[in-house]
């Protein structure tokens, strides 16, 4: 278990127990986040930016169909991948379907969002979950439905194209259980968000040995890139409500189940508009000790940038990168409720994310790799658990322009 000497580390690594993974995150509008004008000093959640863009809480794999139709079963060759629009495209005169099994639960309501484009012909396009149909759709548009999952085995999400639809596309499929904790693992929900780390090593323990990253433009430097294990999220907390919003904890932490070392941040999934508001939440600390409140008044900042962790920044009451816990609390087991002190001007939403911080990389200069040897330079060898979903958040050091990238790599070893 682990390494008991440098010799042991050498033995394990040269024996093949190691993995290296490159990554690239591009600050640019995509399917999930819209980018916008970054403000220096604020933190941003890179989960929704390419590569590996992911909508927090999505139960569906490859919902944006960025790389073919992996994860989807199509009824015939009349449904194919449209590379230009990155969508599932239907042609021909037969009724067709695309299907993906989910682990949604019979009788539970989920928000289902999808986009129809290129609608040509006639007839009803229908999306269903577990056998329960949503509304009939007969035109292009992005539709949101609340569907109580039916009893069909494996809770399939199915999009049905009618035979009378001569051509059409479907894209950007999102299935979320609002306000309910959605755990992330690298083999199920959330796996798209993660930097791959070599798979399960049960019996051994895996550790980060080296991490490096660099920015491809000066505006990407003066930044801090933070590698975290994304444990899951509570999707879509309303910012235009001053009421307490109860959070569901039917599903629990997938790793660090005692909550020790677990931290929280939230990021905008829909811009919230201007208004002065504070954020509070009630959580359970390790112990477990329930009914805990944040350790300070946290000021939420209005922002037009999705992905902005809007409790961070340089204003009074901002805390970064993680929400401040009550004195003496060493982590979070679960969050029971969240509340803004006033309603925001616009109907914004945030995703409240639980994570385990692993390593921070200060990026000083464009093109200069910030590298951390976690064995001898910063001896810590942070553990990477089976199933970990390694994600990135960043503190901007400048007004980051669209197209700026943070590239890098992680290297792990196990033994």
């Amino acid at each position, binding site marked *: 278990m682990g390494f008991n000497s440098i*010799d042991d*580390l*050498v*033995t394990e*690594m*040269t*024996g*093949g127990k*190691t*993995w*290296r993974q*490159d*990554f*690239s995150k*591009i600050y*640019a*509008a*995509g399917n999930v986040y819209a980018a916008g004008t970054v403000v220096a000093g604020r933190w941003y959640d890179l989960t929704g930016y*390419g*590569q*590996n863009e992911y909508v927090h809480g999505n139960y569906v*794999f*490859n919902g944006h169909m*960025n*790389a*073919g139709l*992996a*994860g989807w079963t199509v009824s015939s060759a009349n449904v194919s*991948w449209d*590379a*230009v629009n*990155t969508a599932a495209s239907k042609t021909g005169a037969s009724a067709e379907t695309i299907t993906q099994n989910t682990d949604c639960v019979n009788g539970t309501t989920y928000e289902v969002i999808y986009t129809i484009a290129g609608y040509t012909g006639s007839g009803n396009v229908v999306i269903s979950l577990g056998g329960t149909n949503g509304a009939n759709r007969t035109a292009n548009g992005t539709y949101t439905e609340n569907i109580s999952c039916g009893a069909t085995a494996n809770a399939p999400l199915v999009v049905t194209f009618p035979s009378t639809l001569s051509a059409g596309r479907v894209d950007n499929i999102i299935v979320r259980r609002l306000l309910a904790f959605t755990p992330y693992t690298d083999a199920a929900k959330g*796996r*798209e968000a993660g930097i*791959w780390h070599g*798979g399960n090593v049960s019996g051994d323990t895996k550790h980060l*040995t*080296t991490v*490096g990253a*660099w920015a*491809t*433009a000066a505006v990407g430097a003066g930044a801090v890139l933070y590698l975290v294990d994304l444990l899951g999220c509570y999707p879509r907390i309303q910012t235009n409500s001053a009421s307490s919003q109860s959070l569901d904890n039917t599903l629990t932490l997938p790793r660090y189940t005692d909550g020790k070392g677990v931290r929280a941040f939230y990021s905008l999934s829909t811009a919230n508009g201007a208004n002065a508001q504070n954020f509070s939440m009630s959580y359970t600390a390790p112990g477990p000790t329930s009914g805990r409140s944040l350790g300070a008044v946290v000021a939420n900042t209005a922002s037009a940038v999705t992905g902005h962790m809007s409790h961070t920044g340089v204003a009074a009451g901002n805390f970064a990168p993680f929400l401040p816990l009550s004195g003496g609390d060493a982590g979070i087991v679960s969050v029971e409720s969240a509340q803004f002190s006033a309603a925001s001007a616009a109907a914004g939403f945030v995703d409240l994310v639980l994570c385990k911080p692993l390593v921070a990389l200060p990026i000083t*200069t*464009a*093109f*200069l*790799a910030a*590298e951390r*040897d976690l*064995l*001898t*330079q910063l001896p810590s060898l942070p553990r990477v658990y089976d199933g970990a979903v390694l994600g990135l958040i960043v503190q901007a050091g400048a007004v980051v322009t*669209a*197209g*700026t*990238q943070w*590239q890098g*790599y992680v*290297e792990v*070893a196990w033994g």
Partner: protein
Amino acid sequence: MALSRVRQISEEGYNGGNQWESSFRKVPALASTAGVWTDLSSAPGNPKPNYYTGTELTATTLDGTTGVFHGGSVSPKTKVLHRVLIQSTSAGVVPATFQLLDYLAFHPLIDMDVTDEQEFTNPAPLPRYADGVGVKAFLVATNPYIGGASFTIRYTDHLGRERVSPPALTNTSTTITSILNSGRVAGAQGAFIPLAHDSRGIRSVQGITFLAPNGGLAALVLVRPLATMTMTEVTAPSEWDFIAMKPTLPVVQDGAYLNFIVCPNGSIAAAPITGLASFVWS
């Protein structure tokens, strides 16, 4: 038999005849662009330039002795990269990040104006990392191009499944040796072509499709990244030890063709890049 103790580096490696140190000197002839990865295997100097010559669209391998030489075959021993030193006498290069790659195969003479799929021929499995795990791809210009077009590749992943890559936008650097999929505009990527979410590598590539004419010719190169290094300043060499400073001990397989790619801060034309690479085995 793999390296199992640090003392073996000295006893069996440096003092036991199981070690090799190569020098390299690359002086790129062509301009490059900040933020666009550039392939140094094609740059003049030593080891000699690789011009990606071969049968059109057919997987072609490189002779390992023509890259950064690492001491030849050592099987059944295991060879690792121990140390790299890089320096440049030109401020135009630094700061810059380098990657040392094992070049596994390439598909030459891709016409980037063709918008139909160009199907590849694969006469044999990859010579190393044949299961595809950890194998990446990049598209490098072998003739000048215009850029600004997206492309996808159709490939067999590490589990033998057919997959399609997300569209990658080519840069407008226009110069030979530029890695087309990298750049600083929305839609461009890093050094490597992004793969489908569930792919951990590439066994083979079946074809490439441009979604719009791009201009120029290119080669699709399959590589296994081994190490990343950054050159910090022009006044001093940068040096890394892959045991004590970066405990990663990249294994170098028999027959490996080693060379570098670089993400420069500006044009590296006529900028000498020199260095040393040291390998040990046990």
